[in-house]
């Protein structure tokens, strides 16, 4: 019973701590306002709270990055070298360099521009993640663009569908179907990559509002015990990754619905 009460208190204090809401001091912190004890409830709730940020980072970058990815992929698929060359170079640069270095460079550029909110992890890291995932996705979409069946496109031309309609109704759906398995992988990689944002990638952590791994590391360092916080954060990631895979599979089934053979 006491355990339940502890956990309710933990939820009350720390459920949205990663966004700066709730109790100011972290459990076990030595400053005047802190002092909540370190227990399993607090650890789990706080890591779960950080998890929300990982999910948000991933979701925002993936959904906004998709549009840039599509543009880049279509540019890369053009015939004119002056259109493909910049797209190629852009994609290659982001795919060929480590994300951590991109974070550093991004932060330094934002700082030198004095770009207010983009010097914070929440916005600045999101921008870097956006470009990063856009380039990986662009390569995936580009790979799925070329095998779109010629027959389908020819029929569309014969029926006088305009280029935009051809793309929207024929090319795009086929492209998405072909790209989806790889895109699922990219979503998982991106989601996992969000963990390095708060780990010393340049962006300052403000008011100890971090992600799941930030809190896990906090507890591991404070207690000199990695055997509780890290497995918890690991399990969180397993669970959310499993949900992500499930979600992507559902979409995959939808995209492949026409291949189901009833005869």
């Amino acid at each position, binding site marked *: 019973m006491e355990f339940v009460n502890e956990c309710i208190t933990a939820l009350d204090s720390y459920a949205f701590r990663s966004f700066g809401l709730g109790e100011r001091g972290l459990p076990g912190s030595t400053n005047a306002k802190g002092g909540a004890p370190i227990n399993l409830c607090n650890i789990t709730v706080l890591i779960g709270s950080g998890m929300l940020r990982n999910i948000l980072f991933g979701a925002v970058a993936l959904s906004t990055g998709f549009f840039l990815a599509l543009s880049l992929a279509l540019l890369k698929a053009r015939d004119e070298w002056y259109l493909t060359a910049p797209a190629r170079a852009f994609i290659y640069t982001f795919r060929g360099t480590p994300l951590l270095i991109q974070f550093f460079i991004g932060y330094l550029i934002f700082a030198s521009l004095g770009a207010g909110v983009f010097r914070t992890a929440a916005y600045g890291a999101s921008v870097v993640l956006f470009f990063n995932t856009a380039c990986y996705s662009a390569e995936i979409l580009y790979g799925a663009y070329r095998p779109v069946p010629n027959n*389908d496109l*020819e029929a*569309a031309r*014969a029926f*006088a569908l*305009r280029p935009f309609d051809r793309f929207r109704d024929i090319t795009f759906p086929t492209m998405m*179907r072909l790209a989806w398995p790889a895109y699922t992988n990219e979503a998982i990689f991106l989601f996992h990559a969000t963990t390095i944002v708060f780990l010393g990638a340049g962006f300052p952590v403000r008011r100890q509002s971090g992600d799941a791994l930030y809190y896990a590391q906090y507890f591991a360092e404070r207690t000199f015990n990695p055997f509780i916080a890290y497995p918890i954060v690991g399990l969180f990631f397993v669970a959310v990754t499993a949900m992500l895979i499930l979600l992507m599979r559902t979409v995959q089934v939808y995209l492949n619905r*026409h291949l189901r053979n*009833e005869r």
Partner: protein
Amino acid sequence: MPPVEPQDQPVIALSDIHKSFDDLHVLKGVNLTANKGDVVTMIGSSGSGKSTLLRCVNLLEVPEQGSIAISGEDLSFKAKGHSRLPANASQVNRVRANLSMVFQQFNLWSHLSIIENVMLPQRRVLKRSKSEARQRAEDTLRRVGIDDKADAFPSQLSGGQQQRAAIARALAMDPAALLFDEPTSALDPELEGEVLRVIKSLADEDRTMLLVTHDMRFARDVSDKVVFLHQGRIEEEGTPAELFDNPKSERLQQFLSASVSR
């Protein structure tokens, strides 16, 4: 001289069509007209250029030379030779919307259900409303006898059913003419019949049709005019009776005897 009424003009009029791929000269000056209500069938051995000619009609291939008029409207081109292109994209779209094609490999859009396949060009090109397009799609699917498969996907249908769906898709556009590119070549023999019956019933309705086929019996049965192509030229043309019963050129005689013995 009285003005020529549009309905008096040929639906399709090709003159002096030349087309080559790289070094291969496929069409070497072909003239062809199809008047309203005509069923014109093109026969010839493979490589004779009959499919290419059909694809020139709706500009899936652009001929290097020659003129094309659809219902009296002359198609305009720019540049010359291999780089020749249609000058007016909206004209091309207008022509294509008016000449619906049925392909050898059906070319149904595999990610759309049958009824969606029939509705899509109506909605996008003719700008019909959703309910109108659905209504028309149901009508044409009933017409070809697969209204029960409306919600299936192409991969779930037999080849014959897929080709009938492709015909329904073409019919739903209410085109001035239908173009058939070897519509039964990709089908198993036992499935050919159902498709041929549908095409025959369309011919009986006095629709304008341009047909490429290797099925001589069917060509004779359905055509008003038969055109025999050989090595990119029209070797002989006339009514089915003239061509099949009384072939004049030696090449047509050879071709026909080879087809029969097959």
